[in-house]
């Protein structure tokens, strides 16, 4: 028993932080219908501001005021007023992509402002972190842990007192029950909504400041993982119950530490599973809780009382324009091909070949999200599976790298089927969360073994060789990559123009109607998920062979999120969009490389902001501009006299 307690007690501070976040998430989801994926970024923002203030010599209480009482609510309020408010009744895809944009843009924006140097030993909010205050069941309780637990309990006590004994508390509880009924009762629901955003952002900020000193370094990624833990805790309360979400968070923190204590130490399982527990719990919950599934099938607590969302279609189009764009695209591609073989310097050829590999990975997002309306947040993981399969087969079984690339695609497809099968019944939000959790699970456990990604060391992939043909030179490899891109694009185009593509478009439009004309949605989703995983796998293997050495870091979950945001910005509906995305991705990176390192943060900021325009320009803000320009040029040529 003592041993059990000594393992369990260190989990309490983590549990408290999870619980705070979970409660905040449920609050805003229930009342505004927006699942705020940027919540982790809000926690990070407060933690960073607190760190900066304290390091500048401010007293802790002043830092706390600035970070948690001022910055956190302002940030949350700004997000609600300038973004979420306008997309409350939008399709779940729009809401997710917009929140994702914020999740990616906010941490980078902060690093651009405050610098991106390493921030070691984040300060503790209240009690001295080093000091041991007392012993409990053999555990030395230090100031960080003690203050985290005390502050959490105090805040939760205050919040529940407020919700039960004040006017605004009563209104907030009513809002959580039914926003529409609150309006009908003559209450200004917008004002209550603002209060809820302030409260929930305050909780995020507090959680961020409390969590930071539990890690040795202040890193944005820790807060993304915190977010997933909070989502898992919220899922324990079926995303509706505040008390269940709170206790779910506490329980998750405790079980995490228990696992760390009881699992044999020194193995990948013990070092990986402990941090990965929330993701595993989330996946199991999504699959096992029928109530949760049902809830997500309707995917929006406000659905049914709001008017149907506006259609998602390109705002500028028409047949002539489509053909013109297609022709122009082919021409650009041909010029690009010839240029790379002739005058482009070799370091840029390398960069552009990278762009081709990314384009192939991005084709999978076009297929899944653009053509089918499904959201997968683990496409980088599938790319990793492709690369590591290729590497392992080539180094250990002497398979040719060519076959390895194909095998990489095949294995990724097989894993894709395994992931898609249970996730099938989930739509929208739940599928996104399940794939996000799967990706994080792969980061922490799956890719750490020597037979897969080999942890930090990574694996080697040689360049392919075909008989006497050798692809070690940059130009030869470029040609190979280019051919692969054409083949993969042709596959996606064939699917789009064929019956499957029309069925996918139908499914995107209305799953209900697609099923009632006889479409087997389950089979269709598995098929498209598998093909998309295969594309990502091929792209990943190609990327690996180009680089020579790749490690799990090249395919981590955060990249999956970035990929999504990049493609959505450049054009998620078309094959051209995927290629634009691949090229934009590498070229922008290369260009930013010439600037001071801090400016590299511009990259996620630009694409993050691009993603939040998704609601306005579903075809992608870059694609939209391109179409506008082409259309203007065409109309100028047709009616030159109307100018001026």
């Amino acid at each position, binding site marked *: 028993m003592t041993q059990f307690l000594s393992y369990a007690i260190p989990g309490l501070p983590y549990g408290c932080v999870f619980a705070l976040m979970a409660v905040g998430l449920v609050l805003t989801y229930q009342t505004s219908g927006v699942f705020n994926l940027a919540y982790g970024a809000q926690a990070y923002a407060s933690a960073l501001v607190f760190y900066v203030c304290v390091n500048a010599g401010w007293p802790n209480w002043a830092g706390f005021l600035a970070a948690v009482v001022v910055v956190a609510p302002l940030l949350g309020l700004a997000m609600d007023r300038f973004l979420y408010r306008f997309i409350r009744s939008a399709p779940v895809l729009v809401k997710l992509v917009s929140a994702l944009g914020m999740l990616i843009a906010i941490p980078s924006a902060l690093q651009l402002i405050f610098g991106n140097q390493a921030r070691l030993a984040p300060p503790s909010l209240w009690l001295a972190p080093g000091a041991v205050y007392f012993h409990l069941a053999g555990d030395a309780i230090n100031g960080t842990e003690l203050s985290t637990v005390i502050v959490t309990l105090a805040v939760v006590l205050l919040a529940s007192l407020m919700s039960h004994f004040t006017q605004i508390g009563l209104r907030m509880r009513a809002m959580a029950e039914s926003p529409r009924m609150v309006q009908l009762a003559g209450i200004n629901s917008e004002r209550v909504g603002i209060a809820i955003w302030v409260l929930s952002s305050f909780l995020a900020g507090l959680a961020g400041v409390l969590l930071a000193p539990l890690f040795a370094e202040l890193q944005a990624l820790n807060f993304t993982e915190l977010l997933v833990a909070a989502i898992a805790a919220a899922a324990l309360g079926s995303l509706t119950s505040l008390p269940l979400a709170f206790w779910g968070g506490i329980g998750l923190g405790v079980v995490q530490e228990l696992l760390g204590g009881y699992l044999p130490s020194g193995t990948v399982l013990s070092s990986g599973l402990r941090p990965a527990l929330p993701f595993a719990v989330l996946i199991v919950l999504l699959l096992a809780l029928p109530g949760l599934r049902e809830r997500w099938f309707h995917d929006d607590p406000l659905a049914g009382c709001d008017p*149907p969302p506006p*259609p*998602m*279609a*390109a705002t500028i189009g028409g047949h002539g324009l489509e053909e013109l764009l297609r022709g122009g695209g082919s021409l650009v591609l041909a010029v690009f091909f010839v240029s790379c073989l002739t005058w482009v310097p070799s370091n840029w050829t390398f960069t552009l070949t990278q762009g081709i590999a990314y384009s192939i990975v991005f084709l999978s997002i076009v297929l899944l999200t653009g053509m089918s309306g499904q959201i997968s947040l683990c496409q980088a993981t599938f790319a990793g599976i492709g690369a590591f399969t290729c590497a392992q087969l080539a180094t250990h079984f002497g398979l040719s790298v060519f076959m390895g690339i194909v095998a990489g695609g095949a294995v990724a497809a097989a894993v894709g089927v395994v992931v898609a099968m249970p996730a099938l019944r989930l739509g929208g939000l739940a599928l996104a969360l399940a794939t996000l959790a799967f990706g994080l699970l792969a980061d922490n456990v799956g890719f750490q073994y020597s037979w897969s990604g080999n942890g930090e060391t990574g694996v080697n992939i040689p360049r392919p060789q075909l008989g006497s043909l050798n692809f070690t030179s940059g130009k030869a490899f470029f040609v190979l990559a280019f051919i692969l891109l054409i083949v993969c694009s042709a*596959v996606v185009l*064939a*699917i789009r*123009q*064929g*019956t*499957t*593509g*029309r*069925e996918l*478009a*139908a499914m*995107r*439009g*209305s799953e*209900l*109607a*697609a*099923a*009632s*004309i*006889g*479409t*087997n*949605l389950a089979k*269709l989703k598995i*098929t498209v998920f598998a*093909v998309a995983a295969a594309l990502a796998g091929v792209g990943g293997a190609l990327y690996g062979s180009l680089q020579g050495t790749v490690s799990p870091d090249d395919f981590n979950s955060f990249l999956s999120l970035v990929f999504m945001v990049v493609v959505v910005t450049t054009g998620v509906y078309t094959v051209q969009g995927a290629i634009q995305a691949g090229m934009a991705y590498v070229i922008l990176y290369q260009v930013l490389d010439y600037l001071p390192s801090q400016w590299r943060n511009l990259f996620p900021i630009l694409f993050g902001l691009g993603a939040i325009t998704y609601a306005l320009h579903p075809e992608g803000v870059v694609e939209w501009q391109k179409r506008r320009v082409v259309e203007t040029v065409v109309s100028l040529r047709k009616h030159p006299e109307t100018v001026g």
Partner: protein
Amino acid sequence: MALLEATGISKRYGGIVALDNVSLFVDQGEAVGLVGPNGAGKTTLFDCLNGVRHIDGGRILFDGQRIDRLPVYERARLGIGRTFQRLELFAGMSPREHLMVAERVHRGDGRLWKDLIGRGRASAPVPRVEELLVELGLGAVADDPIESLSQGHGRLVELGRALAQDPLLMLLDEPSSGLDTRETVGFAAVLVEVRARRHTAMLLVEHDLDFVRRVVERTYVLDFGRMIASGRVDEVMAEPVVRSAYFGEVT
């Protein structure tokens, strides 16, 4: 033997009994109404018949086959077509494409490998689809974006999409809602004509009794999840139990 035979259907949502031991049948080529006040369980019954919801008790026979455990798409392939009360259209597709995709799925032409070798492409116009477009009066708007169509045209597209599957039975869920009087009369005429030409059986949920009279021979009345009457439209509507369900007790 009846084309559709539902016996003792029950459906509960938690503690609420939405359908309580409901039975009905539709013969080959017959048009049958299903009326009842709001919240009577009409749409729930439709959902159970085409498989969107699973029933908690009873059984459903279609064309001699037990279908109550089959998923939606299999029931559709057996020949149950459906339209929706709140339009369920495919954003970004034209009316012609709506009909084409239904027709292709019906032909079982959705194999991925066929698409990959270019066999699944739409090259020539499909005669069945063109015929339907003309029959329903959608010829002029066949290539317009679906978002630009009126509610009335949207209803026709849904009807056409269901007919493109060549169904034996059509489930029509309040086709007149959102239509003006002229459109409603027009839609009823289209239904009558479709049935005369194709002998498709129809089960029609509808509030507009004029509309019901124009289209069906007999009707069922559903109230609070129970079937309270059935028979010819005017006779049924004269029954006291039906009048009280619609208008409350008349003294």
